[in-house]
């Protein structure tokens, strides 16, 4: 590869409110190169990409130092619009879609296809009519490029996060003058097979001559597609290597600056099926969550177990928790310890001793403009009356900041939330650390049953270990029953006692964690019905 670099970052330094988060980063990518950027939560990856994309947070907080060159020419990128003009596309860690518009409209946003009409001939191009048909076709072909078959006329609001991710990606690859493409953790909410599609799409893009910057916490993905890798730690570039020199364990070591040890969790004695101690009985549950519909779901949850729910995006694995916790319209009956839990009422669900980590951390999981301590204690304060000063009327009792802070500090320590303190605004945290705050919020409820949807989304490998360990300890020592939804099968298999696989809104089957990959794969594809046994010849 003797080609010259299409994009060069030279000596990028950035500080937020006096804290330096990037120190003299140099980076070069050539056309056709897929460059992996990895690093711990809070290492500065998203910040670097925000600088490259001219995001307003950067300029509102005093800009940055250093130089960006495109084709060797220094450029000033002061807005996303400018970045797009220069041929830079970006899929953000947090979604940037307009919820009120359809998928096709989102994909074509600001680049609408128009036809001239009477008014526009007089008033100019901005008055031209939108050519919805052409827009739809373009959107369709972008989606097909990703092998996603979802109706492009659906509104984005209410789409499951996995789909939003693909819409974002489709929007970017639809751009015609694309030269550099940034993916900031595009695969965090995707299952392996979906991520596979994404990686495939990335390869095709790069073959077209586009340079790709790819951020992920899944090291095997980097190993699979990247041609070269940069590693960030605490805002510094600690290593850059070519693909063939890279080894996963070495990378992990570079990332955290010490040897990473995989803690091995003690296997739990296999539960005796006979003496089933049922804590929650779900009967005939249907949930109308757009894109994640659940049909007639039946399940008995055993006390103290860790149950995994897996399946491809759109097959309802996320719908179950959202339905039971009252966030989406649901029908059916749910009994906890024999007592009915009323559906469609979040407060009742919470009062009955359940809590949830939402997969949608930006809208449901976090109060972005509030402090860490407020986010962590809010639900427990509202539902259980914790963190309040004594007083007669619970509603009019004042918050107890000292108690909130104390609790937040323990949570920050337990979950290793990297922040400047419990008063830091959640918006100012890195993505992975925001996720930890979400988890802390649910754990603060000390629930009997924890519904954790994608609890480790966007969390780096070191912290993931810590969080999975923490969940297991909650279950073994605290007796908490945990239902964990995850798109990462490996993670489910690591800590779950049983794993439910969903297909088209129904339970396709329940497997032990040590079942074979093939069994899991077939169940996800709906080729294996529980009770009916495996039909190998039934495989397409």
């Amino acid at each position, binding site marked *: 590869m003797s080609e010259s670099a299409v994009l060069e970052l030279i000596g990028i330094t950035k500080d937020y409110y006096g804290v330096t988060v990037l120190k003299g980063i140099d980076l070069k990518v050539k056309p056709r190169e897929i460059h992996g950027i990895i690093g711990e939560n809070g290492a500065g990856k998203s910040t670097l990409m925000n600088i490259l994309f001219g995001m307003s947070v950067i300029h509102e907080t005093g*800009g940055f130092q250093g130089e960006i060159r495109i084709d060797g020419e220094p450029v000033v990128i002061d807005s996303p619009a400018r970045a797009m003009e220069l041929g830079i596309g970006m899929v953000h860690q947090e979604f940037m879609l307009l919820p009120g518009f359809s998928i096709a409209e989102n994909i074509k946003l600001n680049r609408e296809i128009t036809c001239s009409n009477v008014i526009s001939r007089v008033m100019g191009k901005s008055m031209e009519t939108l050519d919805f048909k052409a827009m739809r076709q373009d959107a369709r072909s972008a989606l097909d490029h990703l092998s996603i078959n979802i109706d492009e006329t659906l509104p984005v609001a209410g789409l499951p996060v996995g789909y939003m991710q693909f819409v974002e990606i489709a929007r970017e690859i639809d751009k015609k003058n694309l030269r550099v493409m940034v993916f900031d953790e595009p695969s965090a909410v995707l299952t392996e097979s979906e991520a596979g599609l994404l990686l495939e799409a990335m390869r095709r893009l790069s073959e077209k001559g586009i340079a790709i910057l790819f951020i992920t916490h899944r090291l095997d993905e980097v190993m699979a597609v990247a041609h070269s890798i940069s590693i960030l730690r605490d805002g510094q570039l600690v290593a850059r290597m070519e693909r063939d020199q890279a080894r996963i364990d070495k990378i992990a070591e570079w990332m955290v600056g010490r040897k990473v040890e995989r803690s091995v969790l003690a296997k739990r004695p296999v539960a005796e099926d006979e003496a089933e101690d049922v804590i929650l009985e779900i009967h005939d549950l249907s949930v109308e969550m757009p894109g994640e519909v659940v049909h007639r779901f039946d399940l008995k949850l055993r006390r103290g177990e860790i149950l995994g729910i897996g399946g491809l995006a759109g097959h309802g694995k996320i719908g179950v928790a959202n339905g039971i*916790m009252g966030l989406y319209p649901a029908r059916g009956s749910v009994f906890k310890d024999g007592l009915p839990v009323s559906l469609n009422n979040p407060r009742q669900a919470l009062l009955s001793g359940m809590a949830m980590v939402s997969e949608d951390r930006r809208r449901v999981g976090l*109060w972005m403009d509030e402090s860490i301590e407020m986010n962590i204690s809010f639900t427990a304060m509202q539902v259980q009356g914790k963190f309040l000063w004594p007083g007669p009327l619970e509603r009019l009792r004042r918050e107890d900041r000292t108690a909130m802070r104390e609790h937040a500090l323990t949570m920050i320590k337990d979950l290793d939330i990297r922040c400047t303190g419990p008063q830091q605004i959640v918006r100012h945290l890195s993505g992975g650390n925001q996720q930890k705050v979400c988890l802390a919020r649910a754990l603060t409820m000390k629930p009997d049953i924890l519904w954790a949807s994608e609890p480790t989304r966007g969390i780096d490998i070191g912290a993931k270990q810590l969080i999975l360990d923490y969940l297991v300890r909650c279950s073994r020592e605290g007796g908490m029953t945990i239902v964990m939804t995850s798109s990462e099968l490996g993670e489910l298999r690591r800590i779950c006692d049983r794993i439910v696989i969903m297909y088209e809104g129904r339970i396709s089957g329940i497997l032990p964690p040590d079942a074979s990959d093939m069994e899991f794969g077939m169940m996800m594809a709906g080729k294996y019905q529980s009770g009916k046994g495996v039909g190998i010849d039934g495989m397409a």
Partner: protein
Amino acid sequence: MEWLKSRPIFWQNGLIESIGIPRIIIAGFLVFLFVLAVVLKMDLTFLISDSLVRIGMNGLLVLAMVPTITCGAGLNFALPVGILCGLVGGVVSMSLNLRGWVGFGTAALLGIVLAWILGYVYALLLDKVQGQEMMVGTYVGFSMVAGMCIFWLAAPIKNPAMVFAIGGQGLRYTLTLENYYCKLLNHFLEIKLWGITIPTGLLMFFGLGCALMHFFLKTRVGRAMAAAGSNPLFAKSSGVNLNAMRHLGVVISTVLGAIGILAYAQSYGFLQLYTAPLYMAFPAVASILIGGASLQKASISQVVIGTILFQTLLTIALPVTQTVLSGADVSEIARMIISNGMILYALTRGERRR
């Protein structure tokens, strides 16, 4: 980009941003006016006393904006609804010939009860027009004022001091509170210091309102209201009833409007009926915006700063400009320009953020 790097450190740390350019400009202008007043050898003590009174008079009406902003309903342009409730309370207490603290207390109590009911009805109406609260509110306020004009005319009140001298039917345009509770709060614990009159009671009343609101916002329900306003899904997933929170915010705001107008009236000395409440919401809206509040977020300190800046500006700017321009009355024009300009500025800024 060069100029960004060369910014002084206090700028980079966001000090100026946090105070806000509009406030710095207005405060600077105020200082300039004060200096001008000194140069022109005007009676500073009088100007300051007058400002203090106006701050106390208007404070609660400005404070009434906080609950609606917090619960996500934006600025309360339907403030006249609350104001009318307060006026009805005042009229009834007057017709019962109640004077002094009893009169003021009865008026306030009646106003609160009425405002609670009407505020709730108005909140139910807002449920149907979510996202357009401010526009609908403006019209609701206007129509309420118009409707009440008929009530004032037809009210079955016989007290000759209150009805039109000719005909004996229909309330007068302004009812004097002389002999009732005129300047009751102003004179309570009044202090005279270096020639400045401090209306302690009035300021304490405003202060008490602020303190209660400050406390309320930190209670469990206050926090729930703020969460419901700024991140509804987060609040919902924490078991907060979104509708109830919005209703509560609107009700509290309406109640504050009712009490606010009574505090205003006792200081002014008159109950102003008929079309007087029509534009009452605008100075309050302008004040809180000058204080730095946005359509989504407001704090007590913004109420206090905004009221002080806006009211002081009005009280001082007028006499000074009048002296400079030798007699031309620019008071009303200045007030309109400042308040409407500020509202316009905030609205355009708010739209862009969405």
